[in-house]
């Protein structure tokens, strides 16, 4: 999908990011809404994507081509590689006639990756959510505030998180995260 230059506002400052912070390249992101208590819906999504949509809050369900992040009781963010258009199309086809909403939002958010021994500290500086391993683990995601920007935080490894922020906030959030890491990069 990125034949043309894909430039988020954060890209311009990415060079100055310290170790442990980077901006990920474009991903397919599709916002899906529907009634998770309706088995026709759930089954159709499964057919189209191979995903068992998580109905438990703040869970990520991983599939082969993409994963689904729980956003709200009737909303998921499907994230994967490849072509947004084809994912949208297969969802539209599988769900045609149902009461759903499917939106390609691949360009809506920038994804940052923070990793390393200090990523928990960085999150503790920027968010009031409990990211301690006892409360949050790989496979969890949460919508919250990172500094003063809305964000989705997904834990992808023991010491690795993905942070999705709206594109217009991405320069702010990227710079913020970078500065939060400085304290640790100097000592390490």
């Amino acid at each position: 999908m990125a034949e043309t230059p894909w430039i988020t506002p954060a890209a311009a400052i990415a060079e100055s990011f310290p170790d442990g912070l980077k901006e990920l390249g474009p991903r397919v992101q599709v916002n899906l809404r529907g009634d998770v208590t309706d088995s026709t819906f759930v089954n159709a999504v499964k057919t189209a994507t191979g995903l068992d949509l998580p109905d438990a809050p703040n869970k990520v369900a991983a599939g082969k081509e993409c994963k689904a992040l729980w956003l709200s009781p009737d909303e998921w963010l499907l994230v994967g590689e490849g072509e947004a258009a084809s994912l949208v199309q297969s969802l539209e086809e599988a769900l045609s006639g149902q009461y759903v909403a499917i939106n390609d939002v691949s360009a809506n958010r920038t994804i940052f990756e923070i990793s390393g021994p200090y990523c928990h500290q960085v999150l503790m500086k920027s968010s009031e959510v409990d990211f301690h391993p006892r409360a949050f683990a790989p496979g969890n995601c949460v919508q919250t505030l990172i500094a003063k920007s809305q964000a989705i935080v997904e834990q992808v490894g023991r010491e690795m998180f993905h942070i999705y922020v709206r594109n217009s906030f991405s320069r702010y959030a990227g710079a913020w995260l970078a500065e939060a890491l400085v304290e640790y990069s100097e000592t390490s």
Partner: protein
Amino acid sequence: MLNIDCPWCGKRHETEFHYGGEAHIARPEDPAKLEDTEWAEFLFMRTNTKGYFAERWLHSHGCRRWFNVIRNTVTHDIVGSYKMGEKPPKLPKRTGDAK
């Protein structure tokens, strides 16, 4: 900083939420039928309870759901939260024990 129990996401800090004021003020079925006084009641008059109070919150930075909370406006104790359309939990007695 209140710790508010979103019926979906669990307990989160107040900064993730938006306040929605008194709960259970239904928009009149047919506004055209109302007298000006009745319309003013709906628009502006509020119970503003001192003590246990049913109020609305929006988990605006989380799951974007509106829900109701019973909170004591004197002690700030939260008794419970419930989804829109659900019945409120039984209220403790009217006012809080603090001054």
